[in-house]
């Protein structure tokens, strides 16, 4: 899987120009995780929204394995509902009027394809969702909500899974819990992932490749081990090291 992104987004009074390729030969693992790394407010969410098709860039091109999803020059724009990209948002965004089970099966209503009979059971088992199935989202903890959100995205049989700071609103213990689930997904499923984060620790644990974004553009792309310095505590340390290279 190769996702190529070369877009320009006007965000308020500044323009975000992004150009990178994720996946390909050096992705490592079956699916591979590419991290979008950068400080808060740098526009990472807008880039992911553009990849998902929720936001139309002002210029450029987005393609997955050669299939064009967006091309400003050719006026091509495949809307989000036809991209089949799973998206796990920062805040879960579960449907409050539906039970956990119905949230998980939401995408089935619009997906006429045949499903493997054990697909649902597998995802439920993978994320430990069995005891939550009949509950409503309002009564779930933050960590439980994120697990359901991940399961819901997986059951849409995504070609690519987008995760936008899925741990941001969780406390340290929940972060660790969800992170270990994500590592498990990475190793057991062959779905490529784009993982947005400003945490070096999360990126190092999860991703094989990283795209560093600063000052409205991509400042570095490559394997995590090469781009991110070992034991960098936070974004600022990384950004200094990237500049000195």
């Amino acid at each position, binding site marked *: 899987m190769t996702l190529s992104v070369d877009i320009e987004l006007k965000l308020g009074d500044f323009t975000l120009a992004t150009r990178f390729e994720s996946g390909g030969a050096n992705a490592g693992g079956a699916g591979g995780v590419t991290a979008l790394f950068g400080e808060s407010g740098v526009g990472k969410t807008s880039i992911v929204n553009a990849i998902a098709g929720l936001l139309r860039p002002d210029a450029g091109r987005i393609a997955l394995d050669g299939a064009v999803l967006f091309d400003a020059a050719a006026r091509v724009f495949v809307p989000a509902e*036809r991209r089949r990209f799973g998206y796990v948002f920062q805040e879960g*965004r579960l449907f*409050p009027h539906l039970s956990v089970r119905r949230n998980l099966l939401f995408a089935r209503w619009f997906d006429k394809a045949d499903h493997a009979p054990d697909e649902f059971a597998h995802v439920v088992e993978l994320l430990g969702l069995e005891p939550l199935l009949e509950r409503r989202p309002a009564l779930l903890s933050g960590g439980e909500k994120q697990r359901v959100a991940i399961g819901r995205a997986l059951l*849409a049989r995504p070609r690519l899974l987008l995760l936008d700071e899925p741990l941001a609103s969780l406390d340290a213990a929940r972060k660790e819990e969800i992170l270990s689930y994500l590592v498990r997904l990475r190793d057991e499923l062959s779905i490529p992932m784009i993982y947005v984060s400003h945490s070096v620790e999360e990126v190092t644990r999860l991703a094989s490749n990283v795209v560093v974004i600063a000052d409205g553009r991509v400042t570095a792309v490559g394997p995590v081990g090469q781009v991110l310095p070992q034991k960098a505590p936070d974004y600022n340390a990384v950004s200094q090291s990237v500049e000195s290279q």
Partner: protein
Amino acid sequence: MLTPEEWQVILLSLKVAFWSVTLSLPFAIAIAWLLARTNFPGKSLFDAVVHLPLVLPPVVVGYFLLLSLGRKGPIGELLYTWFGITVVFTWMGAVIACAVMGFPLMVRAIRLSMEAIDPKLEQAARTLGAGGLARFFVVTLPLALPGVVTGMLLSFARSLGEFGATITFVSNIPGQTRTLPLAIYTLTQVPGGDEQALRLCAIAVVLSIAALLVSETLVRRASRRVLGYDAVGRH
């Protein structure tokens, strides 16, 4: 306890209110959605036109209806020549008058509850493959349900109380267009009608309170359904 004339008035009022709510509901939902979720040139003008019955004197609305839907009016003439339908001076005309008068209230309640829905939920639905119409029926409309119920009540109450537009458009015909307020008005115009008028006033109070209680219960149930707190008891 109630005289046959009183029953006639009550049943006619309920029939008119029921049909006016039922007929305006789909249009009100569609227009509420347009106002809450879309932008188009001339939207503020459109919004103002939708709200017009709320601010115009009801007699003016009734007179406009008479001019356009009367036998000689542009729409009324078509209705008559194509379908042989005359709405003026019939209970169907009363339904139209009440529907028009209650329409802005209904649209407003539904629109407010749609605007309160986080658009991020609709975005999430998109990433899960839900196209426009599916998204509306599976996410937006169910979440707006409390507002829909409130809007139905407001329009129902407006219909029960409608006077000016009805009497101007369809007149005051017993059994056809003489709804509760018109009947009360008629009784206050005849000598010695006070006692009967007061009886009808009491009935109006009872009907309004009943409608309010029913809708309170429905709204509470709908909100609990939407927010998912009904599971509290079970866990």
